[in-house]
Each structure stands twice: as structure tokens, then as C-alpha cells.
């Protein structure tokens, strides 16, 4: 590739071409060897002093240098018009390099060499001026017989030769001597009038072959006698003929005093030329001379000729040539400075402020001239543009060299003259330095050239005219510009230029391919794009190919293009390698990363989004065009990853499909590498699907199986805790330890998110677990665009223990699996995340570094944020954990006797349900318990828990809960169920009004296991059977009453037969009204069950809507004082129940008395009902009924029993009928009162009598406080009082026995009543 060296005008170009079958490395080796000769001292060049050839030969003792450069590539033929304007652009000599293989003969080598030259240059081209073929002898040199100088233009370098370098130097010097001689010949031709006309014929003239020019006879004649010395001096000689005095204007000039004289001599030369009759000005000729002298290393002469030509151009403007002459002058001053640096010339300067200012001015002028050149000829556009660019680059190169060499000095000159192998990377700058501002700025301050000024010069090279250039030149120019920018640290500008370079290269690739495509018409378009590559070695393809033929691709160079691309993207803030390749074969393990920490939302924007998108699109297109499929995928996916926020929907979709296609192709081509997982964290959460209740195991300690001592029935309290709401219960329970069962299917819900606008396809998604082995099959998931998605992944734990779910392993399409950790959202974790996010948000708007210092991927290293560092990163994340318990049996309900799960009951009805369960597991069930629940329990428990009920109501509620459950079960029925076996359970039901639903819970377990160590715990499972319950309320009980029983002889009422005929006063009557509020008749039976009485029953059929009173005699009873003084028991042992302190002692005693008698009453009565015409029957509860004090008094046997009777005066019974006495009026009768102590202890009693109407009765003694005295238990006392009824009518006598002390009501221990009817007889 061409390099734009500053001093290229002074370089003698010698083209190196391989000849014959020389291998590339061998050629390269010799090229390197030859390239060591950067310059040759003029003194080393053999002088050929024949006639005109001697003109450019150096003086024997001259001290200058001939600068050489050795390209291996000739300039394109389109540049031939430049041949006179810029001879240094063309190879002036050619060296063929051949390695001498045994079979080759030297003449054939030489013939090949000439053949090659004919290919390279058109036959009539004036260059190269000299040629030579170096044959390097290989091996032991057995064909040395062929050695010798028999063949001209062929030099054989034997392998045995000791000092090859010196010999090579000699050979090259010979070649240079030839070149210098040819310069003379060429100039001679140009000096002829015809030659001069050719020279001035057009803007960029071409000289026809020298043979076609008429031989300048005069010139020959005149020059012949020239003394060789004059041309050695190179100072145009006075003695030369007038015709050739074109070279004479400076004839008397010495190098020290040239300037003044030249002004004097120029008019003379002009005159002389015109006198010759030449039409054209010799300015161009002088310029050519200057060029040749520059090349010949004779700077003084060159300088003189250039100055002369400039003088001429001033009069007749010829911008391109003038500019070229200025460039030449500029080059010469650097050459001189370089020589001075080498101490070869005693020279001046280096004290002024800007020693290069003069040179730079010349170049600026030249640039401006090129810029303004009017170009008429279409073909010359490209060449003038090229010259312009070269001139700008020369200028830039000057400034850049001085800048990079830390000022005007030998280093700078050397850089400009002999840039070495790395022309664009000066020794003072390393790759790292380019990013260090201070280093670059230091260079500026030392050298006094600011980077901006260099950049502004470089920028001139860039413009639309670049399109005029051929691709090769364009790439060369752009490359140079990019390199300058790069070294100056202007990376964005460099990126700009690099894009153009890429555009150039890719355009060449694409166009080349198009041409191939035409040649291979049979290729299908898509196949065609895939088969050709940068330097594709294309093999001929048969035209009728129906078979897909793949041509071997050469991927050489692709890598560099991609590297360039990656660099350019990096400058624009795009990480093209954000997603890396991973060789599938080498790493099967997934890389691990805590996905939660890369918060995509909080990424700070960097760079210019529109540019980034454009560049990325281009990058993908470039990679597709190469084609490098993995790179396509990498670029597309990386940009999806990093630029997701700014990419448009269409782009996202395009990138995704492109990457997928590219990956497929790459895989088809057998590429083993694959992409790492590229999207952000797609997992937003993992949760375990709760097991269905039927499968949920409960852990119980083994001690629960042991029989417990009396405990409060748990049904009353509804659990241990009195508080309904306990916030700590959830926290202190085991939130993360869900229990699951070994070998049973677990289901996890994975929440996935897809922020992209396309459906994201995950090849596999599986859980990442530790702990016990977990079997699950990865699933394939398609996450819909821009949505959250839930996936259920199921699996089995194959052992018991702890199963930890760390996260998910995700594999994208054709990618490498990657694990994403999902920590449990514990408080600490959430706090950590919140803190982190907060810290990031706090930093969001703040920028310490800007521009290229703020690349997002460098940020982490540059600034360790205090706040971010402080966040507790040491926190060990907790994961979702499951406790896997051993295998458990499983029961299911096979059938029930209930239809539709609904149960219909009458209030108080008793029935049974049959429930058949089946063991569907392989383990036996050896433990089975039933627990019941119904809708009445919870409200009752709540009421109890509130504690606001009176003790009496509490008792009633508790009684209902304990003794009247909806369901009940006989525990003895439980027995082991073998695998596959069945068991029928019988559950009793009791209808309770208000119950709407009930549930039967069967708890079962397999406890007896064959394990060596005794287990601490066992696990139960529960089988629930919910029931809808409807209870009909059909019988209302009301108006319960207890009445004293009195019997009359003439009673003919039914049921009389049931009554005991004796001891009538120790009986009472229980009566209750029952109303049937239902639609069918019921028969209600009340049965008496008393210890000291025969059983009896009364029944009644109650029609719908009617009320019936049922009456049954009851034997009175008396409870002991001890019994009734007990407090009302609470069935639960609740300690927080307060005693009702509002009641007085007496009231409390009465309440207790009422309570206990009522309980006793209910015990002695059994109320049943029977559905008429049906089979349903049940109990009727009396517990709704209240007991009053009068009922109590009736029911209770009196402590002191009083019997009263009337006797006639002669001690015979007074007639009495139907409980009434019929004494005679006005006759004395005896009233006998018998008091008996029925109490268990002695009583002190007195007797009160009341007679009504008292004014019609006379009596003996007093009626109040008749002393009875102390009566022992069971003893009796008789009192007889005489009295006389004074009128007809009805008289009533009441007697009451009182104890002493206390209030009047409490003193009464017994009472009796007697009715007497006095009638006229």
C-alpha cells in the first residue's frame, strides 16, 4: 500500500518484483534485506561520465545521499499522465528477485523477468529507466557453472557469499547510477523544442517513447565536447550552447549567493529562449530538472531550478506545475536539514521561532493552487485530486512529524525521510498514549504545534473530491488521514474516517462479488451472497449446476475488517463484543451471574443514539457482506443488548431475525462456537405452586401420637392462640420452607419478561437447583413481545432432604446456557436492592467524566462509588427452599352416601353418612383420624373468645359445641388401609339449626416405616370432604311450665292412669307447648327417666301449623345444698373468664339453684320426635326454655312438708271431695296441721296461718308464729287448731313453715293450702 511519506518526492523508487517460482516468504525475506538500504551516499555511486548521461551524476567527492524506497507494487496505469509532472511517483528502476532453483536456467529467469515487466508497464512508457534481476542462489549452489556476467541485467548472488550486504549495496548503487544516467538522456530529449512542446502540450503531458523523438543533433554535437567536470558540478555551464541554455540561467551562481544572481539572469534566459523560437515557456522544463536533481540528491541544483521555474510560472500561471515545484522546494529544505542533522553540511538556521514555517507556507500555497486548478479534462480530475490530497498529506505529515518528534530536529527529519516500517505510528507515541490527553498535550507544548492546527490541515484532505480517486488511492489517503487523527488522539474523527475506509473496502468486495455473480449466473441469489468472500478464491462453476456448490472461502482479512469495525463502534460508545462467543465444546458449564444487579433501567445513556444505530446497522451489514455469520450474530445481539433503549422496533426485529438466521447458517457450516446468553435477566421471579390440599403434608412430632391427659377440648378455643390476628405468626413461621413430597410432581411458576418487541424464543428453560437431586425436563418457551409471561416447570425430587432453587438456567436460540440467580425476596434482599437502586439513581444525573472518558464499560473501574461500595454486598442471598419429605400415602374418596354433596336434616335429626376412602398410593395408611368442622363452630368460638357472655350463656354455647356437634365419629372404626385398599367410614350427623355447611377432614399418615433410626416426626395428609348442610327448623317449643299436681277423684282426663295414686304431693306436672311450623306432621314424645320413678311417656301428633301441649308428671326432687352451691361450670378451662360480680350473693345463689335444677330437669326428660310416615326421627331440645322461680319452687321437694286436714269435733274426717272440704257452718272443726322435716338436717320452724275471709272465721289461739320447735330430719310435728266457719261460702287456709332469721321470702321452707266450701245443707 502506498504510504504518504513527506519526502516521497526525493525518493528514488525501485520496484521489487518476484520473478519465476519464488515463494512468498522467500521473496519477503529478500525484500526486507534490500529495504535496509534506505539511502546511498552519492560517493558510493559509480560515475558514468559519458556525454549526456553524466549530467546528473554526483561529484566524486560529493557528500549527499540518494534516498531510496522499495515498493513492491507499481502505480496504476491510470497515473501515467503524471509521469513528467511527478517522476518520483513511478518506479525509476526495477529489481527482479528470483531464487535460483536447480531446474531454472538463468536465461529463462531473465526472460521471465522481462515478461513480467511487460505486464506491469505499457511498452511505450518512459519508466522504468533501469532494470536488473537479482538471482539469489538457494541451497549449496551447485549450478554455479551458470554464474558469470554473460547475461546483462542479471546478477547472481551466491548463497555462499560472505558479505552479501556489501555486494547488494554495490549492485543497487550500479542500478542507481544507471538511473541517473537515464535522467540525462530523458532531459536531453525534453530540452529539444519538440520535447518542450510535448511537455507543454497539456496539463499533464505524456512523453512519447524517446525513439520517436528526433535526435537533437545540435545538442549532441554541442554536448559532446563538454568537459565532464561541468556536469559533475551540475551547475549549468556558460559554455553550453545557447540551445541548451535552458539549463544556464544560474550558471555563475554559487551555492552561497544564488538568490541575487538568479534575478539578474532570468530575463536573459527568457530572451534567449524566445530567440530560439520556442513557443512554450521553459518553466515546466526547469521544474522537471528540479525534480531530477532532487531525486539525484543534488539539492542545491534542484533548488536553483525550482526557483527558476517558479519565476517563470509567476508570469504564466500554471498552477499544478507551480504547486508541484513548491512541493519540491519544501522537500529540499527538509532534505537539507536532514543532511545538516547528520553533520554532513555546515549549515545554518534552527534558531528561528518556527523553522518549518517557511516549508509550511510553501505547502499551503501549493495546496491552494491545487485546490483552485480549473480542470477541463475529465480524466485529469482524478489525478489533480490525488495531487491535492498528497500535498495536503505532505503538509500534515510535516506538522505531524515535527509534533510527534517533539520539535524541529533530527528525529523529525528522519521521520519525514525514512519513516521505517510503521509510518503512521511515530516512535514517541504508543498505542496507550493515544488516549492520554496529557501526553499528547505535552508533545504540543514541546513542539509548539497544537494538535488542532494539525487536524485542521488534515481536514483539508477530506472532501467530495475523494470520489474522484481510484479505490486504492482513496483507501490510502483515508488510511493516512485516519492514522493522523488516531495519533493525535482525535478518536471520533478517526472513527469518521474509518467508516469511509470500511465503505471503500466493502464497496470493492460487493462490486467484485457482483461481477462474480454475473459470471456465475446459475447461482441462486442467496447462495451467491454466502459463497463469495473478501478474497474468495473462486473456482469455475459449471453453468448448469443444479447442485449447490460451495466455493472455499478465504476469510483472510475478514478479521481485520471486523476489528476495525469493533474499534469504530467502541469510539461511538457501542460495545460490539458485549455478547461473547463461547466454544460449546470447551465450556458446557454455564456462566453464573447475579442477574439482579444489572439494572437495565438505570443505565445512563451514553453516546449519540441515532449515530449508534446507524453504525450498528452498518456493522451488521458489513459482517453480512463478508460474510462472517458469527460476527453478524454477535453484532446484532450485542446491539440488542446494549442499545435496547434506543433501538426502534423495526431494528430490533431485524437484528433478532438476522442473528437467528446467521447463527443457523454458522451452525450449518459446522462452527462449534456459540453465543453466550445475551438478553438481560429474563427471570423476574420463581414461585412454587402450592400443593393441592389433598397432597399437602403436615409435619407432626411423634409425641402427638401419645395419648394426652385431659385437655380442654380444642373445639371450644379454636386453636391455641386466643388472638385472632397475630402478625408474627407469618413471620416466625417457616415462610421459605415449603413442604413437598419425594417422588411427587412439583410445579414451579417462573415469571419471565421480554422487553423486546419481538417474540423471544428460549431454547430451554430449566431450574437450577442444589440440594437433593431434582428431575425435570427443560422446556422450550416463546415469550411474547413486550410482556410478562408465566411458565410452569414441573419436576420431581428423588430424595428427601432440602431442595434449594437457586434460579433458572436459560438458553437462548443457538446460545450457551446461562444461569440466572433469583434470590428470595426477603426483607434484607429487598432492602439491598432498594439501596442499590437508590444509590444508582442518586448518581444518575452526575457526570464527572465526559465524552470519551465516560464510556459506560470503563465507568466501573474509574470510579468506585462510595455509596455503591457501601451497599452490603456481602449479603448471602437466600433462595427458595423446599423441604422434601419422604414418600407419603395418598387417599381419595371413592364414594359417599351423600348425593351431590348436600345433606338435608331436620333440627335435631340424627342420621349417618358413609364415606368410602381408597388408598391410591403404594404405602399403607396406618393412622387415620377424622376431624369435623361446620359453619356453627367458628361464630360460636368467636363469641366465646370475646368473653362477653354471661356464665349461663357461656355454658349453653359450650354445651352446644361439645355435646351437640354436627358430625361425630367413632374412633374405633379406624384401621389400616393397605395400598389399593378401601375403608368405609361412618359419620353420624346431628341437625343443628343455623348450620349451612360442614367439612369432614380425614387426617392420615403412614407411621410405621422401615427405617433404622426412630423418626422424630411424621407427616400427615388431609382429605377433606365438604358438605352443604340444610337444617329445617320444624318444631318450636315454648311455654315450658311446671305445675303442682293436685288430683281429684272425678278426674277423667287422659293420662290419669300414668299418675301415681299415692303420695300425690311429691309430684308435679311438666308441660310444654310444641308448635309444628313445618309442612309435615310430627309425633312428639316426651319420656320421663327418673331414678326413683317408673318411666313414662306422653306423645302427641302435631299437625302442621298447630300447637300442642304435652304434659307429663314429674316426681319432685331435691338437690343437696352442696350440689346447688357449686358454680356454674365452664366446659372450657378458660382462665380469663371473669366471674359476674354484679350479682349479689343471694341472687347468685338463686341463679345457681335455677341452673342446677334445670340441668337435672333436662336430664330426666327425653324429648323425641318422629316424622309421620317417614323414618326420620331425632331429638327435640328443650334448652331454649327458661326456668322461672315458681317452676323451681314447684319442682323442688319442700324442706318442710305441711299436710292440713279438717276433722269434725269427734275426730272424724270432714267430708271432702275433689280436694275440697265441706264442713258445716257454725260448727267447730279441728284443723290439723302436720309438719314434717324432709330436709337432711334439723330445722327450727314456726308456722304462720292465713285464713280468708278471716272475718267469717273464728279460731282459737293465734295464727302467726306458732312455734313448732326443732324438728329433726324426718321428724314430724302436729298442731291442732279449732275453728268455726261462720258463714256459707268458700274459705281458703294457707299455712307456711318458716325458719328463723333472714328475709321473709328466704325463711319459707314449706307451704300448704286447704280449701273448704261451707254450704247450706
Amino acid at each position, binding site marked *: 500500500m502506498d504510504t504518504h511519506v513527506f519526502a516521497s518526492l526525493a525518493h528514488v523508487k525501485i520496484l521489487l518484483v518476484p520473478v519465476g517460482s519464488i515463494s512468498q516468504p522467500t521473496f519477503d525475506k529478500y525484500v526486507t534485506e534490500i529495504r535496509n538500504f534506505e539511502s546511498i551516499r552519492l560517493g558510493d555511486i559509480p560515475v558514468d561520465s559519458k556525454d549526456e548521461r553524466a549530467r546528473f551524476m554526483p561529484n566524486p567527492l560529493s557528500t549527499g545521499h540518494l534516498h531510496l524506497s522499495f515498493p513492491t507494487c507499481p502505480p496504476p496505469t491510470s497515473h501515467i499522465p503524471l509521469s513528467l509532472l511527478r517522476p518520483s511517483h513511478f518506479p525509476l528502476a526495477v529489481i527482479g528477485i528470483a531464487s535460483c532453483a536447480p531446474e531454472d536456467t538463468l536465461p529463462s529467469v531473465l526472460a521471465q523477468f522481462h515478461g513480467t515487466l511487460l505486464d506491469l508497464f505499457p511498452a511505450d512508457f518512459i519508466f522504468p529507466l533501469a532494470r536488473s534481476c537479482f538471482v539469489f542462489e538457494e541451497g549449496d549452489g551447485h549450478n554455479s557453472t551458470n554464474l558469470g556476467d554473460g547475461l546483462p541485467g542479471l546478477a547472481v548472488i551466491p548463497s555462499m557469499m560472505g558479505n552479501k550486504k556489501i555486494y547488494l549495496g554495490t549492485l543497487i548503487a550500479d542500478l542507481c547510477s544507471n538511473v541517473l544516467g537515464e535522467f540525462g538522456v530523458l532531459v536531453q530529449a525534453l530540452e529539444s523544442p519538440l520535447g518542450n512542446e510535448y511537455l507543454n502540450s497539456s496539463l499533464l503531458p505524456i512523453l512519447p517513447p524517446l525513439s520517436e523523438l528526433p535526435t537533437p543533433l545540435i545538442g549532441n554535437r554541442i554536448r559532446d565536447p563538454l568537459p565532464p567536470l561541468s556536469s559533475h558540478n551540475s551547475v549549468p555551464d556558460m559554455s553550453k550552447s545557447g540551445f541548451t541554455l535552458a539549463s544556464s540561467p544560474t550558471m555563475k551562481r554559487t551555492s552561497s549567493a544564488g538568490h541575487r544572481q538568479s534575478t539578474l539572469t532570468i530575463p536573459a534566459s527568457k530572451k534567449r529562449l524566445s530567440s530560439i523560437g520556442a513557443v512554450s515557456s521553459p518553466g515546466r522544463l526547469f521544474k522537471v530538472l528540479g525534480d531530477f536533481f532532487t531525486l539525484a540528491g543534488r539539492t542545491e541544483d534542484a533548488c536553483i531550478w525550482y526557483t527558476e521555474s517558479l519565476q517563470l510560472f509567476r508570469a504564466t500561471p500554471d498552477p499544478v506545475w507551480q504547486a508541484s515545484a513548491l512541493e519540491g522546494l519544501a522537500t529540499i529544505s527538509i532534505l537539507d536539514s536532514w543532511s545538516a542533522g547528520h553533520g554532513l553540511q555546515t549549515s545554518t538556521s534552527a534558531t528561528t521561532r518556527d523553522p518549518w514555517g517557511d516549508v509550511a507556507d510553501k505547502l499551503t500555497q501549493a495546496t491552494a493552487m491545487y485546490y483552485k486548478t480549473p480542470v477541463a479534462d475529465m480524466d485529469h480530475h482524478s489525478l489533480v485530486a490525488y495531487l491535492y490530497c498528497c500535498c495536503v498529506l505532505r503538509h500534515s505529515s510535516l506538522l505531524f512529524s515535527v509534533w510527534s518528534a517533539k520539535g524541529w530536529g533530527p528525529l523529525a527529519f528522519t521521520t519525514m525521510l525514512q519513516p521505517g516500517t510503521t509510518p503512521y505510528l511515530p516512535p514517541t507515541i504508543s498505542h496507550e498514549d493515544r488516549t492520554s490527553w496529557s501526553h499528547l498535550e505535552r508533545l504540543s507544548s514541546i513542539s509548539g504545534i497544537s494538535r488542532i492546527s494539525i487536524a*485542521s490541515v488534515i481536514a483539508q484532505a477530506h472532501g*467530495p473530491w475523494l470520489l474522484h480517486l481510484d479505490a486504492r488511492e482513496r483507501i490510502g489517503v483515508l488510511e493516512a488521514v485516519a492514522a493522523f487523527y488516531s495519533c493525535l488522539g*482525535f478518536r471520533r474523527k478517526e472513527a469518521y474516517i474509518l467508516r469511509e475506509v470500511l465503505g*471503500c473496502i*466493502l*464497496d470493492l468486495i460487493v462490486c467484485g462479488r457482483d461481477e462474480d455473480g454475473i459470471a456465475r449466473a446459475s447461482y441462486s441469489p442467496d447462495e451467491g451472497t454466502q459463497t463469495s468472500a473478501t478474497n474468495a478464491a473462486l473456482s469455475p462453476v459449471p453453468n448448469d449446476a443444479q447442485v449447490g456448490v460451495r466455493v472455499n472461502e478465504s476469510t483472510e482479512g475478514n478479521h481485520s475488517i471486523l476489528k476495525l469495525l469493533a474499534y469504530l463502534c467502541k469510539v461511538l*460508545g457501542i460495545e460490539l463484543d458485549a455478547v461473547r462467543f463461547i466454544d460449546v465444546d470447551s465450556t458446557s458449564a454455564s456462566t453464573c451471574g447475579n442477574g439482579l444487579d444489572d439494572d437495565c433501567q438505570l443505565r445512563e*445513556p*451514553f453516546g449519540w443514539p441515532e449515530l449508534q444505530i446507524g453504525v450498528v446497522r452498518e456493522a451488521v451489514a458489513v459482517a453480512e457482506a463478508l460474510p462472517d455469520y458469527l460476527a453478524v450474530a454477535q453484532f446484532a445481539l450485542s446491539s440488542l443488548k446494549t442499545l435496547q433503549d434506543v433501538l426502534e422496533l423495526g431494528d430490533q426485529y431485524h437484528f433478532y431475525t438476522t442473528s437467528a438466521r446467521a447463527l443457523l447458517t454458522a451452525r450449518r457450516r459446522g462452527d462449534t462456537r456459540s453465543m453466550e446468553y445475551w438478553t438481560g435477566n429474563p427471570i423476574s421471579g420463581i414461585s412454587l405452586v402450592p400443593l393441592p390440599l389433598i397432597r399437602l403434608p403436615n409435619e407432626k412430632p411423634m409425641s402427638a401420637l401419645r395419648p394426652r391427659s385431659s385437655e380442654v377440648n380444642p373445639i371450644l378455643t379454636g386453636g391455641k392462640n386466643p388472638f385472632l390476628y397475630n402478625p408474627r405468626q407469618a413471620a416466625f413461621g417457616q415462610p421459605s420452607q415449603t413442604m413437598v413430597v419425594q417422588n411427587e410432581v412439583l410445579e414451579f411458576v417462573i415469571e419471565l419478561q421480554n422487553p423486546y418487541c419481538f417474540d423471544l424464543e428460549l431454547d430451554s428453560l430449566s431450574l437450577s437447583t442444589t440440594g437433593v437431586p431434582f428431575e425435570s425436563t427443560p422446556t422450550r418457551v416463546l415469550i411474547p413481545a413486550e410482556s410478562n409471561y408465566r411458565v410452569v416447570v414441573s419436576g420431581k425430587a428423588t430424595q428427601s432432604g432440602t431442595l434449594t432453587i437457586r434460579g433458572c438456567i436459560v438458553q437462548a436460540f443457538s446460545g450457551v446456557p446461562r444461569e440466572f440467580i433469583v434470590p428470595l425476596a426477603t426483607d434484607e434482599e429487598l432492602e439491598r436492592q432498594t439501596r442499590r437502586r437508590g444509590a444508582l439513581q442518586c448518581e444518575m444525573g452526575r457526570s464527572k467524566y465526559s465524552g470519551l472518558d*465516560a464510556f459506560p464499560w470503563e465507568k466501573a473501574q474509574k470510579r468506585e462509588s462510595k455509596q455503591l461500595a457501601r451497599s452490603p454486598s456481602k449479603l448471602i442471598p437466600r433462595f427458595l427452599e423446599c423441604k422434601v419429605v419422604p414418600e407419603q400415602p395418598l387417599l381419595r374418596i371413592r364414594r359417599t352416601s351423600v348425593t351431590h354433596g348436600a345433606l338435608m336434616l331436620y333440627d335435631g335429626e340424627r342420621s349417618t353418612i358413609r364415606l368410602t376412602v381408597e388408598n391410591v398410593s403404594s404405602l399403607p395408611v396406618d393412622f387415620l383420624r377424622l376431624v369435623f368442622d361446620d359453619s356453627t363452630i367458628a361464630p360460636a368460638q368467636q363469641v366465646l373468645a370475646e368473653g362477653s357472655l354471661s356464665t349461663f350463656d357461656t355454658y349453653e354455647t359450650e354445651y352446644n359445641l361439645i355435646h351437640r356437634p354436627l358430625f361425630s365419629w367413632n374412633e374405633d372404626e379406624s384401621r389400616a388401609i393397605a395400598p389399593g385398599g378401601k375403608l368405609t367410614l361412618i359419620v353420624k350427623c346431628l341437625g343443628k339449626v343455623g348450620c349451612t355447611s360442614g367439612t369432614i377432614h380425614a387426617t392420615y399418615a403412614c407411621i410405621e416405616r422401615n427405617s433404622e433410626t426412630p423418626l422424630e416426626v411424621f407427616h400427615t395428609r388431609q382429605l377433606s370432604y365438604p358438605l352443604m348442610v340444610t337444617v329445617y327448623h320444624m318444631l318450636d317449643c315454648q311455654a315450658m311450665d311446671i305445675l303442682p299436681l293436685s288430683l281429684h277423684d272425678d278426674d277423667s282426663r287422659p293420662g290419669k292412669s300414668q299418675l301415681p295414686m299415692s303420695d300425690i304431693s311429691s309430684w308435679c306436672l311438666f308441660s310444654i307447648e310444641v308448635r309444628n311450623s313445618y309442612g309435615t306432621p310430627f309425633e312428639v314424645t316426651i319420656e320421663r327417666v327418673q331414678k326413683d320413678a317408673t318411666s313414662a311417656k306422653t306423645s302427641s301428633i302435631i299437625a302442621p301449623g298447630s300447637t300442642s301441649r304435652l304434659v307429663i308428671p314429674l316426681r319432685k326432687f331435691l338437690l343437696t345444698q352442696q350440689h346447688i352451691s357449686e358454680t356454674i361450670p365452664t366446659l372450657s378451662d378458660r382462665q380469663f373468664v371473669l366471674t359476674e360480680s354484679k350479682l349479689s350473693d343471694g341472687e347468685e345463689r338463686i341463679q345457681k339453684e335455677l341452673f342446677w335444677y334445670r340441668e337435672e330437669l333436662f336430664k330426666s326428660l327425653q324429648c323425641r320426635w318422629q316424622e309421620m310416615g317417614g323414618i326420620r326421627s331425632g331429638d327435640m331440645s328443650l334448652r331454649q326454655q327458661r326456668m322461672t322461680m315458681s317452676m323451681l319452687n314447684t319442682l323442688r321437694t319442700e324442706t318442710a312438708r305441711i299436710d292440713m286436714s279438717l276433722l269434725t269435733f269427734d275426730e272424724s274426717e270432714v267430708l271432702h271431695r275433689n280436694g275440697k272440704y265441706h264442713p258445716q257452718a257454725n260448727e267447730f272443726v279441728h284443723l290439723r296441721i302436720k309438719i314434717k322435716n324432709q330436709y337432711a338436717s334439723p330445722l327450727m320452724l314456726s308456722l304462720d296461718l292465713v285464713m280468708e275471709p278471716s272475718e267469717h272465721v273464728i279460731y282459737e289461739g293465734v295464727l302467726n308464729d306458732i312455734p313448732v320447735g326443732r324438728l329433726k330430719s324426718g321428724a314430724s310435728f302436729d298442731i291442732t287448731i279449732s275453728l268455726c266457719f261462720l258463714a256459707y261460702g268458700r274459705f281458703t287456709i294457707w299455712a307456711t313453715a318458716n325458719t328463723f332469721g333472714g328475709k321473709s321470702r328466704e325463711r319459707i321452707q314449706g307451704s300448704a293450702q286447704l280449701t273448704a266450701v261451707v254450704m247450706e245443707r
Partner: protein
Amino acid sequence: MSLHLFVLSPSDTPIYSLTHHSTKPVTNVPSPLASNLPAWSTSAFAGTLTALSGASSVPHHTTGGTVRMGGGQDRHVIQMIANASLDVVEDVMRKENTMYLKSVDKFNEWTISAFITPGNTKFVLLHESKNDDGIKSFFMDVWELYVKTMLNPFHTAHTIIRSGVFDARVRQSAKKYL
């Protein structure tokens, strides 16, 4: 003649951009070198190259009249140039303490002037003709408007300015000065 204004956040992200068509004539004379550009190959990459090299802004004569080549890429190229000019802007910014950087860079036909706020927000203006005073006044106006926008507590240095009022006022100022 058009002018392009970009307001860039410290991370080089444009938070506002404006294209203004000025009525003032262009004084730049294109080089004869830039004329008669060859008909270029039609591949997409060549299109990029054409646009980037600046050829698209040169009127291209075909039989149908004046056509602008690769016009679709223009905006992208202008952004590229603005972005590339940041190299120089940053460099000058470090060495000098003026806020208004007059004609700090030149690329293709564009001259770049810049203005740097104390908060390191850069206003980059691409223009073709010389109008130093006008540009300075324009920048001062934009700065004032920008500061007013930044007073919004919800507005960070990286927030894109979408305010219609801001836009309208900037346009007004551009019409006045440019």
C-alpha cells in the same frame, strides 16, 4: 443554507437538535475538484462513502437536472460531523476557559462553532458561512433558555428536552440571529 444545532449532554447524547434554514447566502465557493464527480457504484456501502465524503451536498448534474446524491444520509452525516467535532471541542475546552468557541473546527463544507455551559453541556452548531456575532448572540439566547429548562427539578442533565416552548423560542432566536 441550513444550520444545525445540537445540544449535547455530558455523555455526548443529544438532548435537543434543530435544523434551521437561513436565508443568508452561502459565501463558500466549492472547489473545482469537487465538481464533475463520477457516477458512483450503487452499493449501499458506496452510498455511505458518498455521503460521508461530503459529495452528497455537491449538486450533481445529470440529464434530469440537479440531483443531490445520497440525500437520505445527510442528517446522519451531519450528526457524524458534529460528533467528530467534539474531539476538538473537548481539546479546546480543556485549554481555554471561554464558553463560546468560535469556529472551532472545520470539516468538509461545515464550520463548527460551539458553546459550553458550566455544567458541561455543549451546544454544537454546524454552519457554512461566517457569522460570529450572530452565532454568539444565538448561543447566549439558547443558554438562557436552557438554564430556564434546567430549573425544572425533574430535569437532569441527561433528560431530553421536549418542551415546545423551548423549541419555539430557539427557533425564534435562530430566525433572528442566523
